[in-house]
């Protein structure tokens, strides 16, 4: 019997259908060539996917690097097939209580592997995963083990989209099943556009059942602003820089008081690279949601290596730029709306008069808007302009409301709700529409969540979120007067479109959805930390189940309230509450002892 047939027989004993499919696959994806050691190596599309010198040694090095992170009880999912040297090496390194699965995006490649190398002696317990990403995710979810994804990059590169889709499906699975309670320190900015988003994020995380500790730096905004009044730019920068340093230390001190599972910073949060590196050393998990245009604000370049996870609302070049700057993990996370705030309102007639118009725009006076908006004057419909930083825009003075005052969220919602056509023009520093229109701003989602009709300048991502039946966009500002004319008189059509957009936001684009996604990414990457909390493994019920007839432990945990995550300090506080004269069990004394060591200063400052 030849090796291929032998391999197929082995495979068929546990994966009959797969064996049949591999048998009938054509193969020919890999070009097999002998390595210097004489063992077979392989190329795919001309690129070596195993060492041309010693594929065995290379695989062992790869396995050595990754095996240490794999924990007992986990399901390790490997992306990258090739000739499976790395899978064999990893399987031999792992203890039997760590399961190993291999993604099979291309059965022709697997066919080549089975023709070339024997599965004998190492493959018996491997779970081979053919099928679509959704099917694979479902299979893994049914097994119910914590998942750790590894990639053997040389072999995985050719199927990078497939692997990404599998990860997305796994992440969504984690997000759906998330039942545990994380403690998250949310670090807000001193001021700026990410400040209100910080509030939305907090509410979303709390809605998901997590405990959020907001480190609110906006309380220092007045001092920061005063320093901004210094005329000498060197002094101004020096003082504001020093204040940011102090606030960064302040964050550290706050974190030391009650260490969270995750430190989530919002864009512009005052965190220095030094502090981030210190946190990393102390094993704090950090993430940043950079809700800014990465081309306009570039401080991320210095901070990129500091955070463990970056989330950005731009794709493609943005992701590459962050990786090149040293970001370890960067993921796409678009903007959203908070339906508790961004919602339809029934307004009084007076408010309708005051805040309403045929066409309105709310936002700051960026250069492109100043150049474009005069075209909206002297039209047969009314136009109102709301927002600040319009100084010097004399031609727009007649439509500028509240003398160019900053508009708070409540007023903004009234304008959105009272206006027939809300204009949404993304800001740029140029003269016209944003030439690099690769993100969708929060206002797009907020207007939609309000059930307000909008005309938005077209964005490359827009149709990922809203169909043409849900939102009208324009490629050229010259189209706007015509579109206003077309839609202004068709109330019913506007309403239908706005309702559809709102429904879409509620089902897919709220901050709750985004936070679920963000935690899914982190949970997938950290199966033993955030992942295990999200899976509910720290909840009282789960711990009781895992006591495995250990009565004293079971009693200890059963004393704690059900439906809650059990933390060491909570357990210790519960024991201490019995009073100083109580006779404690050995297990209780051990927990108190452990808590004593836990509460040692974490030496953060």
């Amino acid at each position, binding site marked *: 019997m030849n090796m291929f047939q032998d391999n197929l027989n082995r495979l068929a004993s546990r994966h009959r259908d797969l064996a049949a499919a591999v048998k009938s696959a054509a193969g020919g994806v890999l070009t097999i060539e002998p390595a210097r050691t004489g063992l077979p190596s392989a190329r795919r599309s001309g690129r070596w996917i195993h060492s041309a010198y010693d594929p065995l040694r290379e695989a062992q090095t790869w396995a050595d690097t990754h095996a240490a992170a794999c924990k007992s009880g986990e399901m390790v999912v490997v992306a990258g097939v090739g000739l499976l040297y790395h899978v064999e090496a990893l399987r031999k390194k792992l203890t039997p209580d760590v399961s190993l699965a291999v993604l099979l995006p291309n059965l022709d490649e697997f066919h080549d592997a089975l023709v070339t190398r024997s599965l004998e002696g190492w493959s018996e317990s491997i779970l081979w995963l053919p099928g679509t990403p959704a099917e694979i995710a479902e299979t893994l979810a049914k097994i119910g083990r914590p998942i750790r994804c590894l990639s053997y990059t040389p072999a995985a590169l050719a199927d990078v989209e497939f692997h990404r889709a599998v990860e997305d499906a796994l992440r969504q699975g984690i997000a759906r099943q998330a039942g545990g309670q994380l403690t998250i320190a949310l670090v807000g900015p001193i001021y700026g556009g990410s400040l209100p988003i910080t509030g939305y994020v907090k509410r979303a995380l709390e809605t998901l059942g997590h405990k959020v500790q907001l480190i609110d730096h906006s309380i220092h905004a007045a001092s920061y602003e005063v320093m901004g009044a210094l005329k000498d730019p060197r002094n101004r920068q020096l003082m504001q820089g020093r204040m940011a340093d102090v606030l960064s230390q302040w964050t550290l001190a706050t974190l030391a008081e009650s260490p969270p599972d995750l430190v989530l910073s919002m864009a512009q949060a005052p965190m220095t690279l030094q502090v981030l590196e210190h946190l990393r050393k102390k094993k704090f998990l950090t993430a940043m949601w950079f809700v800014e245009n990465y081309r306009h604000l570039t401080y991320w370049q210095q901070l990129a290596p500091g955070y463990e996870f970056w989330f950005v609302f731009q794709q493609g070049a943005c992701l590459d730029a962050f990786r090149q700057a040293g970001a370890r993990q960067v993921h796409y996370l678009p903007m959203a709306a908070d339906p508790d705030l961004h919602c339809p309102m029934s307004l009084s007639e007076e408010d309708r008069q005051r805040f309403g118009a045929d066409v309105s725009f709310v936002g700051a006076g960026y250069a492109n808007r100043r150049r474009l908006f005069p075209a909206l004057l002297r039209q047969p419909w009314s136009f109102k302009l709301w927002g600040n930083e319009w100084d010097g825009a004399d031609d727009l003075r007649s439509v500028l409301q509240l003398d160019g005052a900053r508009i708070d969220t409540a007023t903004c919602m009234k304008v959105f709700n009272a206006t027939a056509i809300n204009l949404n023009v993304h800001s740029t520093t140029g003269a016209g529409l944003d030439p690099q229109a690769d993100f969708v701003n929060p206002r797009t989602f907020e207007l939609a969540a309000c059930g307000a009709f909008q005309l938005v300048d077209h964005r490359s991502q827009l149709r990922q979120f809203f169909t043409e039946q849900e939102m009208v966009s324009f490629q050229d500002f010259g189209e706007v007067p015509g579109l206003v004319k077309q839609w202004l008189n068709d109330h019913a059509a506007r309403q239908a479109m706005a309702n559809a957009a709102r429904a879409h936001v509620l089902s897919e684009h709220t901050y709750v959805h985004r936070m679920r996604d963000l935690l899914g990414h982190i949970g997938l990457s950290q199966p*033993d930390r955030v992942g295990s909390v999200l899976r509910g493994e720290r909840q009282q019920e789960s711990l009781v189940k895992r006591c495995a007839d250990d009565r004293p432990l079971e009693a200890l945990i059963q004393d704690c309230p059900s439906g809650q995550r059990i933390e*060491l300090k909570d357990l210790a506080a519960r024991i201490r509450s019995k009073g100083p004269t109580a006779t404690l069990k*050995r297990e209780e*004394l051990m927990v108190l*002892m452990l808590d004593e060591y836990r509460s040692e200063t974490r030496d953060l400052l």
Partner: protein
Amino acid sequence: MPHEPSPAPRDLVIQMARLGDLVQTLPAIESLQEAYPERTLDVLCAAPLSSLLAGMRHIGRVIPWDGAQWRDWATGWPENPMATLQVMQQYLASLGDTTYERVYPLNQHERSHLMTQLFLSHSTREQEHDRMEARILPWAQHLRHVARERGANRVHLADAWCGMCGVLPRGQAPSCEPPPVELPQDLAEIGGRQGRWIAVVTGAGEADRCIPPPVWSQWIREFLAQAQDGQVVLIGSGTERETAQAILDSVPTLLHGRVWDATGRTNISQLMRVLQQCHWVIGADTGPLHLGTLAGARALGWYFSRARMHETGPYGEGHWVYQHASQARPQRWPIMESIALICGEQGRRATDWALWRSRMDRWGAYFDDGSGNEAVESSRADIWRACAPSLCESMAA
């Protein structure tokens, strides 16, 4: 049917502090052994120091307390609480069923309190708890008062620990034969040739209690110049290797043959062996200084900053201490004076430093500056009477 003799009752001393404190706990351990020869005495101490007690006579069992492991468990809890709890269970099991009728905790912190509860037998817990309170509380208050006010206290900490254990000091210093361990080849030569061997303790852990390297450099140069038969051994932990190297670099090459660098190269047993070969050990208030006294060397301490010889001076008869006049960082150091003392001349005071000699009596160790000791003895007796009245009564009887 032959009657199985019941095992000897077991007691436990808990001392989780550092090397110097563990050495200074030995008087209490020996007093307990003398007072209760029928009982077995175990000792719980920090794991890295347990080898110190391995060679001590009459200690039943040494329980090494691995603080680093506990820290790891505490760190591991958030990642896997169940596994952490289970590993702690295993740890409990590894300690066996050992519980004690009497426990003598010598550290006044929560961990020590928890350990006491952990090791105290259930059946005697309540009764023993009351006895312990009565025994320990007055001494704990006294020590807190001393730490806060400093004042004129003359009761040595090692003797206060005797009091906490409910026994009187034996009136003589403990000694210990180092275990027969091998030394690195070059260090094995220490003490082998004739001459005055001096162990110089280069570090002191905390920066404000360290004697600056240039001071040691000068001391070594002057000593080797004056004592033609003098030999110097540099003592310290691995973190003090650079300091030792800096000291060595400043010593003329011609004298290098008379300086041995043992910093970072010995474990506790080996260090004891090295110290046993030295006639004198000189340094600040440090673990190796106290270990030296246990190994039989005479100690010469330079006490400054927060260190006060009345509480933590080298224990025993015939040691010397230069005590700095204030808690401020010394500007001058008793270099020539201490060399003169070691070289056999009369001890003399140095500017800003007072010279004290250790002595022993029925209340334990005390320090004498030559101005008479009647008042000193009376003040120590007063403290003993206040903290341990029944013990004093039994002594009088």
